């Protein structure tokens, strides 16, 4: 198909006139229609990170254990004993709004391929989800449909593929009404000696296409993910791909088996921008050219143009380069698994992506310029957008007794069992700690090591202060690992923001990255990869800046430390102390959101040094076997964390006596970080360790049967039957659906 390249056509491809001039410079001529399409997807925000690249460089990416940092399909760290883990988080926000089930399903599929293309078998998935309010009169019905569809889509794909979905988070805010977030994290395990890279090499080596056939689905998915939603977005439904988890399972097994032949030189999945991205990126990384013949590409529709074939985002496809002369060994494995595997081209020495159809050249572009020299923008950034006051409103009289059950039933806090029970969180029998723990723990059967992982992000905090909010997310992710006894080692991030062309949104992005960089540097947890999702806006309304951090760490394989109280008669201690807050900082809390119904002020104050000492201390306490249960304080503060500690099978409660200068509702529900609630039979030793690490760890009470009683300086703040609180907590989400 030939089409005249007009300014309109260029604009439709979301390329600026300057970007177009750069294309002409690179080619030394006008591009063909196919070439224009190829450039447009590779230079889309989604693929090129043109607005964020400059700032992403501020993130720490190196470390002793980092085997592979950003730039590959997934980051890799060494976990000892000859094994590595590959992990990454990616967003599938735009497709999940347009078609929740398939959007979410293919989000899982895409990140799984990123993991196994590195030679690692995926062993765990987690999801970070954001939706609009389920109870909103105008948008609630749609939000409930999106939630239902997204959860079913994740379940459908992960369960069939055979990877456990072991944790995640789910938050509801009006700002996600027209723009839900679906961020999927996956982690895989490989032998250190058997890592594969997405790099082409060896002139004359065959380029092999494997997996599903190419159709017209998903054309321009990457570009769609790089634009705001408008009324016309619904017409983009055909841009959403359809997932086939069974095909993906075959692809996984076949790829891992084919890798064992030793005849594979490099391999990359076809995700965003499909065949275009996999060919030019593999060529660019290997500093070679790749030439392919489109007639040989397996197609499930007739009459597809080169433009369509190159831009299709059909799922469950991989591209690999094999050793010349050993193709048959590779092809035989794919035949065994009943998959299409076709030699579609060769590696060349000229550094160009050359695409032929019926023998004629339809595109010829230098790989490096296409893949790595996309435009780079230093977009103007001013003050981060915020439209809420710093000062607290007049607060209503507090009723702690009534507030606690209300908070426990709040959408962000209540049990997400309805969601995670639809996920197979146990398949492969490695899940030592699954949903419901502060961090998930997966044992590595081949070694005595387990891997712990957590996902954290708080859009409210980040809206109030992107820098502090991002630091808090890193601190909490680390704390979640420390609470289960794991040492945080490395992280992956998913940066969900609005339109970067608005300086006040760009400022959110810049400050969040800088905050995240500072905290990750401090905790020595380099970011080994991730994803940026911009233009999360619908009809000009942006989401809260929502950076999500996925943290991984290791610990010795052993039964997990429960988050709930196990026995009555134990001492309850608050490692890190009661913390502090004021009316300004209280504005970011769940209490402010659910009970006051407002957002104001600033996020909780984070002292990185103190947080670090608290985490060292809790890990030490766990290592000495002192801790019977441990749970970190986050949304809803002390009151919510204490209640959650009581929701174990035994329904052990607690009698608490606090002493503080804070108002009762602030004392109960403020969200200052660096605090962990533990139960122990050895309070003396716990106190010693706390003292050694120069942190507070007051004994705040005893565990008792069946109820919670909280007093402050002998005045009762509230008392509750656990069964009633648990009913509010467990039943809330389902009741809203």
């Amino acid at each position: 198909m030939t089409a005249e390249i007009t300014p309109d056509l260029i604009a439709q491809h979301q390329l600026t006139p300057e970007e177009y001039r750069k294309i002409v410079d690179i080619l030394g001529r006008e591009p063909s229609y196919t070439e224009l399409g190829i450039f447009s997807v590779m230079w889309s925000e989604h693929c090129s990170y043109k607005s964020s690249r400059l700032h992403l460089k501020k993130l720490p990416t190196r470390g002793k254990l980092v085997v592979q940092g950003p730039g590959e399909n997934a980051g890799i760290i060494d976990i000892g004993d000859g094994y590595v883990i590959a992990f990454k988080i990616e967003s599938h926000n735009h497709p999940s709004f347009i078609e929740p089930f398939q959007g979410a399903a293919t989000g899982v599929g895409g990140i799984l391929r990123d993991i196994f293309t590195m030679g690692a078998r995926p062993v765990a998935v987690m999801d970070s989800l954001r939706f609009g309010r389920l109870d909103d009169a105008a948008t609630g019905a749609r939000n409930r449909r999106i939630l239902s569809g997204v959860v079913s889509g994740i379940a459908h794909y992960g369960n069939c593929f055979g990877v456990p979905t072991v944790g995640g988070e789910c938050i509801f805010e009006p700002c996600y009404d027209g723009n839900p977030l679906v961020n999927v994290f996956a982690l895989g395990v490989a032998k250190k000696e058997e890592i594969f890279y997405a790099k082409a090499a060896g002139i004359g080596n065959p380029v092999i296409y494997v997996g599903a056939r190419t159709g017209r689905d998903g054309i321009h998915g990457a570009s769609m993910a790089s634009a705001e939603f408008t009324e016309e977005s619904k017409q983009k439904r055909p841009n959403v791909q359809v997932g086939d988890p069974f095909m993906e399972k075959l692809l996984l097994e076949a790829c891992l088996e084919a890798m064992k032949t030793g005849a594979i030189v490099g391999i990359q999945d076809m995700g965003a921008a499909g065949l275009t991205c996999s060919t030019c990126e593999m060529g660019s990384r290997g500093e070679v050219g790749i030439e392919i013949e489109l007639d040989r590409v397996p197609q499930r529709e007739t009459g597809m143009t080169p433009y369509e074939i190159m831009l299709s985002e059909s799922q469950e496809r991989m591209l690999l380069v094999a050793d010349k002369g050993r193709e048959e060994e590779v092809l035989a494995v794919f035949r065994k698994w009943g998959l299409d595997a076709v030699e579609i081209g060769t590696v060349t020495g000229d550094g160009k992506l050359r695409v032929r159809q019926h023998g004629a050249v339809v595109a010829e572009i230098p790989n490096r310029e296409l893949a790595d020299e996309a435009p780079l923008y230093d977009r103007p950034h001013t003050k981060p957008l915020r439209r809420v006051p710093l000062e607290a409103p007049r607060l209503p009289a507090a009723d702690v007794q009534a507030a606690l059950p209300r908070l426990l039933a709040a959408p962000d806090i209540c049990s997400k069992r309805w969601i995670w029970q639809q996920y197979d969180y146990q398949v492969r029998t490695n899940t030592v700690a699954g949903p419901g723990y502060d961090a998930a723990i997966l044992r590595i059967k081949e070694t005595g090591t387990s891997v712990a992982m957590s996902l954290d992000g708080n859009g409210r905090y980040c809206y109030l202060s992107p820098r502090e909010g991002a630091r808090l997310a890193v601190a909490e992710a680390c704390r979640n690992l420390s609470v289960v006894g794991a040492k945080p080692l490395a992280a992956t991030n998913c940066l969900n923001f609005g339109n970067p062309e608005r300086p006040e949104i760009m400022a959110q992005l810049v400050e969040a990255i800088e905050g995240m960089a500072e905290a990750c540097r401090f905790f020595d947890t380099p970011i080994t990869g991730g994803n940026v999702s911009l233009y999360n806006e619908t009809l000009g309304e942006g989401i809260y800046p929502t950076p999500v951090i996925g943290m991984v760490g290791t610990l010795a394989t052993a039964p997990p430390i429960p988050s709930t109280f196990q026995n009555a008669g134990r001492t309850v201690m608050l490692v890190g102390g009661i913390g502090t807050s004021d009316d300004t900082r209280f504005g970011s809390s769940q209490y402010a959101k659910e009970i006051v119904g407002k957002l104001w002020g600033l996020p909780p104050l984070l002292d990185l040094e103190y947080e670090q000492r608290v985490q060292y201390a809790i890990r030490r306490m766990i290592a000495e076997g002192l801790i019977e249960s441990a749970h970190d304080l986050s949304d809803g503060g002390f009151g919510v964390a204490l209640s959650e500690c009581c929701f174990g099978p035994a329904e052990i409660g607690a009698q608490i006596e606090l002493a503080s200068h804070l108002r009762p509702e602030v004392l109960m529900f403020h969200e200052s970080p660096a605090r962990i609630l533990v139960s122990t039979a050895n309070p003396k030793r716990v106190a010693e360790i706390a003292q050694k690490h120069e942190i507070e760890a007051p004994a705040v009470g005893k565990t008792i049967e069946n109820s919670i009683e909280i007093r402050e300086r002998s005045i009762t703040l509230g008392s509750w039957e656990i069964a009633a609180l648990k009913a509010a907590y467990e039943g809330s989400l389902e009741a809203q659906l």
Partner: protein
Amino acid sequence: MKFGVIVFPGSNCDHDAFYAVANNLGQKAEFVWHDSATLGAVDAVILPGGFAYGDYLRCGAIARFSPVMQAVKRFAAEGGPVLGICNGFQVLVEAGLLPGALLRNRSLKFICRDVHLRVETSRSPFTCSAERGEILRVPIAHGEGCYYADERTLDELEAEDRVAFRYLDNPNGSLRDIAGILNRERNVLGMMPHPERAADPLMGSTDGLTVLASMVRAASGAVRA
């Protein structure tokens, strides 16, 4: 004793069954590929959980036609013990080795959680190490586990003592709370819960080992079914 673990392309609990047999039980195990026409020298067969051929049509509907299922049928006809877990149960029903059908869960949702099972008979090679009435805590993970059969079949199963397990807290709407059934000869068991996931203390329960250990005990000739 050697267990053969059948591997369909979409099996995803095959490694778990293998690991439970080999590492938690200390027995031999080997995988048998779905297009194999023979089972080799195995003493028992496990049809593991998963999505045999994707199961987009109906769970197990395609698997029944696979070459290996013809071998499994012969093995069962000769009296060899066959354990179908989850998708394996669905395959056994589709293949006609067990009566009834497995419908979508009453909630229409996939459910993964621990359930409590009551052992209804100890007269089988899969339950001979258990006491009748014993309670086991074992996980389920399925979207289509609602056991269904006509009244006559259900009566017959009960009259012939062929209900192996019942749910105490029926999670999926199964008729008469049935979680696992035996064939008339008592050498084929299909069950929706996953005993291989409750075979290691690290996974929170070892109650599932009862099923696998019974198979070893039965094979040793210590008990007669």
